């Protein structure tokens, strides 16, 4: 009798612990002031169809705003695109994304091209949510 009571109690306690843990595990809400704009940035210059996700880098990977702003990237949207040296070459020299994407801290900038270069097709898919054939002008 005592044993089964203990067992039931144990079960209840375990469930409670599990529930509390699950509660804690639920992630904090996405706060744009903390993590940057939630929507993807889509660069069209110097080449079309390149994306950057603040969410991926701050909210998920735990980087701070100051890790990139304002040294690597100006805070103002579209500022990097206007620079003449916003190129892969510059990234290989450790500028812009290349500061982390060097093959050590994060995958090297000269690998996995299509992780960021989603292309005209990728942008079409994002914007239309459709699988339509790429390259419609």
């Amino acid at each position, binding site marked *: 009798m005592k044993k089964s009571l203990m067992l039931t109690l144990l079960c209840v306690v375990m469930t409670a612990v599990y529930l509390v843990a699950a509660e804690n595990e639920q992630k904090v809400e996405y706060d744009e002031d903390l993590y940057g704009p939630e929507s993807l940035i889509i660069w069209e210059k110097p080449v079309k169809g390149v994306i950057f996700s603040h969410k991926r880098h701050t909210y998920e990977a735990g980087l701070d705003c100051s890790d990139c702003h304002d040294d690597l990237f100006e805070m103002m949207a579209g500022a990097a695109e206007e620079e003449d040296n916003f190129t892969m070459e510059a990234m290989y020299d450790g500028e812009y994304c290349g500061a982390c994407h060097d093959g050590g801290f994060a995958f090297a900038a000269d690998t996995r091209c*299509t*992780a960021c270069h989603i*292309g*005209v*097709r990728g942008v079409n898919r994002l914007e239309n949510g459709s699988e339509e054939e790429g390259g419609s*002008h």
Partner: protein
Amino acid sequence: MKIQELMKLKNEGTSGLSSRERRQFIKMGFIVTGVYFGGRILSLTSAVEAASSGTVPQEGEYSYSPHYTMVIREQLCIDCERCVEACHSVNDVPGHGRRTKILEKRRPIEYGGFETVFMPILCNHCNRPPCVRVCPTTATYKDEKTGIVVMNHDRCIGCKTCMTACPYNARYFKEEERYVDKCNFCRDTRLAQGELPACVTACPADVRIFGDLTDKKSRVYKLLHTPDTYVWVLRPETGALPNVYYTTA
């Protein structure tokens, strides 16, 4: 004769046929099937016979001089479509048409999401071009010197048979002019002036390499003969012997 009337007729059977008539019928069958059989094996194109021992032709197997080839370093393509834009402006391609386009392959990857590989496609300038075989007016033909599959627009009647024959979907119907149009490696617009095809020059990622395969110093030759790389063509099973190669180099 109308079907209804035919159905009223009595079946004559085969006993009334002379063996001479039967023989003639069978002979005709042999001739007809023979034509198909021969047609499959002996292509009616004027193209030089160009079977090769492997995917990449070896010395002595080049059918043309210069043997124009495009090598596509597929993994580097980022689908920026500068090639498409350049092609359109240089070759007067209308908005609805494509001489080249970018397809994509996607596969799920281990940490979630997808890896995308973009696949540029264009006319493969096949050594045994199915489009040339089916053209009823010889409006499309293999250039004897370079092997480029060319269109003679004046001869095209717009029947689009070539479009259905092409294994690479590389042709489109130019509504405005009422003819079929396709990539010709910028033969008139750029090659004639000693320039590379527009898509090659426009590519920022060095994906498209164009050159003469018979020239051992050319990049195309080197790319197709680099150890530790993989070279393939699209749809090899059609037997069209394409001249656009894809490589991991």
